[in-house]
């Protein structure tokens, strides 16, 4: 018969710090080093060379030449400009639609749970499916969008001036529910007594929104904006499947072509680093702003 009490036995069965380190932390660190850190450093090395994965010749060290050429290439700046336009349209659209929908759902309405679940469906679909699905919807001959809006044979995807907005619209449709979900969480956390106090003070709806709702939801909305900005900056599949127009050639498509169609490995590594630095810079600005919003 054991003399140990149940608590002591449970404690003896538990894992020591050393076991946890050996079983979980060390493998994770090794995994990160092998699959993240090592390729990152390796590709940084390549970015200073003229290495071509498809070539037989050895690579040469070219210093900052790749970076210099890329930053002086008008096509690359055009790709960055397209990406910036896409990010702004897409993220602003998602915030407006997502937050607006969250405001509407933050009331007592019938079948609120079901409606919320249904609205989340787009973001559960794969990008490839969404791309092909919207390609059919936008079709000028038999697409339902032109039919429903009475636009005749209006060209969405083959019109260079419209294609980017068509891709952004699809992205807004797909990812507004994500913003909506986070906004709903933020809205439901706003204390009710603040609204009651505002009502007693006869504050108008706009005053209540700008003085109570928005400031309190802002931190979580900023998190949604950070995530969506990073994702929009990296957009590839949707633009690639829907159009592949020069006017929708965002920077990740250019990077893909340079790396895997032209096989300019060293140069594409340099471009990847330029993109990485830009995303880090933008995210850093956002995070600083987020901290300021939290401090208020």
């Amino acid at each position, binding site marked *: 018969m054991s003399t140990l009490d149940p608590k002591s036995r449970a404690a003896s069965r538990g894992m020591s710090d050393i076991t946890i380190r050996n079983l979980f932390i060390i493998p994770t660190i090794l995994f990160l080093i092998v699959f993240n850190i090592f390729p990152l450093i390796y590709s940084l090395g390549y970015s200073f060379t003229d290495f071509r*994965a*498809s*070539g*037989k010749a050895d690579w040469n060290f070219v210093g900052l030449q790749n970076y210099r050429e890329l930053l002086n290439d008008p*096509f690359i700046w055009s790709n960055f400009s397209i990406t910036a336009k896409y990010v702004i349209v897409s993220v602003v659209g998602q915030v407006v639609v997502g937050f607006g929908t969250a405001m509407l759902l933050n009331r007592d309405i019938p079948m609120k749970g079901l409606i919320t679940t249904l609205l989340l469906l787009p973001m559960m679909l794969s990008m490839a499916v969404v791309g092909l699905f919207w390609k059919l919807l936008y*079709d*000028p*001959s038999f697409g339902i969008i032109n039919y429903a809006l009475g636009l005749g*044979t209006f*060209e*969405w*995807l*083959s019109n*260079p001036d419209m294609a980017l907005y068509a891709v952004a619209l699809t992205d807004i449709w797909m990812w507004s529910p994500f913003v909506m979900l986070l906004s709903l969480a933020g809205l439901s956390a706003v204390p009710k007594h603040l609204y009651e106090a505002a009502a007693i003070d006869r504050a108008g709806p706009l005053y209540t929104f700008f003085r109570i709702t928005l400031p309190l939801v802002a931190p979580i909305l900023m998190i949604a904006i950070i995530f969506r900005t990073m994702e929009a900056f990296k957009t590839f599949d949707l633009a690639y499947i829907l*159009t*592949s*127009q*020069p*006017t929708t050639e965002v920077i990740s498509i250019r990077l893909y*072509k340079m790396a*895997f*169609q*032209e*096989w*300019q490995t060293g140069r594409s590594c340099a471009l990847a680093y330029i993109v990485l630095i830009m995303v880090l810079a933008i995210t850093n600005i956002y995070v600083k702003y987020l901290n300021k919003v939290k401090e208020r």
Partner: protein
Amino acid sequence: MRRTITGLLAGISMLAYGTAANAQELTIFWAEWDPANYLQELANIYESETGVKVTVETTPWSDFQTKAFTEFNAKGSAYDMVVGDSQWIGAASEAGHYVDLTDFFNKHNLKEVMAPATVKYYAEYPSNSGKYWSIPAEGDAVGWSYRKDWFEDPKEMEAFKAKYGYDLAPPKDWKQLRDIAEFFHRPDEKRYGIAIYTDNSYDALVMGVENAIFSFGGELGDYATYKVDGIINSDQNVKALEAYKELYKFTPPGWAKSFFIEDNQAITENLAAMSMNYFAFFPALVNEASNPNAKGTGFFANPAGPNGDQFAALGGQGISIVSYSQNQEEAFKFLEWFVKDETQKKWAELGGYTASAKVLESEEFQTATPYNKAFYETMFKVKDFWATPEYAELLIQMNQRLYPYITGDQGTAKEALDALAGDWNATFKKYNRPQN
């Protein structure tokens, strides 16, 4: 007992060794299209004759180059042979991805056996070097299909003659091609003039434009000296590009991303009067199961340019042995079988476009389909894109410069081609190509 077990083990290992030696398998990589299915049928015959299983693995055209070169660059042995695009030959041979087939080529006298254009563009690199890297497998070129029933409608014929002053018939030159496209372009009736290649993601748009450039007497550059100034932006090429853009006006709506699937659909779905496509896609147009208008579909070769030059863009591919294959010996045996006259004849019967001159010249081949004769004639008037190792960069640059002009109405043909000449010069300079 010990002896029994040892004997059993020896027997099992011999059996295993014997099975492994006989169960040879070969994998051929190609793009996803009908000729790949025909090649699989041909390979099944090889399996029944030799016991060697040959699998034709395919991938969509848009991924073909990326997937093949990713495997090559990794020195992977997943594929024993590849039916690679003609423009790959420089990149693949210089990088050591393809096995040198010169001895094999000479042993079987394939320079004489295969049609000259197929040897020049699918097999030899560098040009006129006598070094061969592929066996011409699928000959192909761009041709045209048209709605014969629309063309032969008496009312249409009368109206056309009244408007243009000559008889409505398959166009003999690019001016007639334009006139007919304009004549049939009736958006109100959801009927359009012409379907051309516009997809800018690989080589579709470039191959489409090449049909105009070559027939207008132009060239892409001097492939021996890498000179492009005054050639790619020549007056003929400017006029050719303007003519191609003119045709784009008469395409169905949303036609800015179209390749072989859409161009065949233009005929099957009553969208366009004429449609550009590779001959390899024409079997679907004579098949009533895939084309309700099969009986009313006719074919013609790429029309002549203003000065009577008549050329077409080359399609098609040669078959190469991948350097990293573990089964090169067996792959050579397959190629030995593939180049035999009877195999080439069978290949043509299955639907493949043989490159064998003897089969192509035969009456049997030329009368087998409504388009084989046009194909045979076209194969003697083909020209191809650059096959230099940096072809992919040249292709992307050409897309970047021409696509906005053709589909987006941006700038002029001269500006687009001048800019392209600048891009290509810079690329050749970067790779130290001599530009005399």
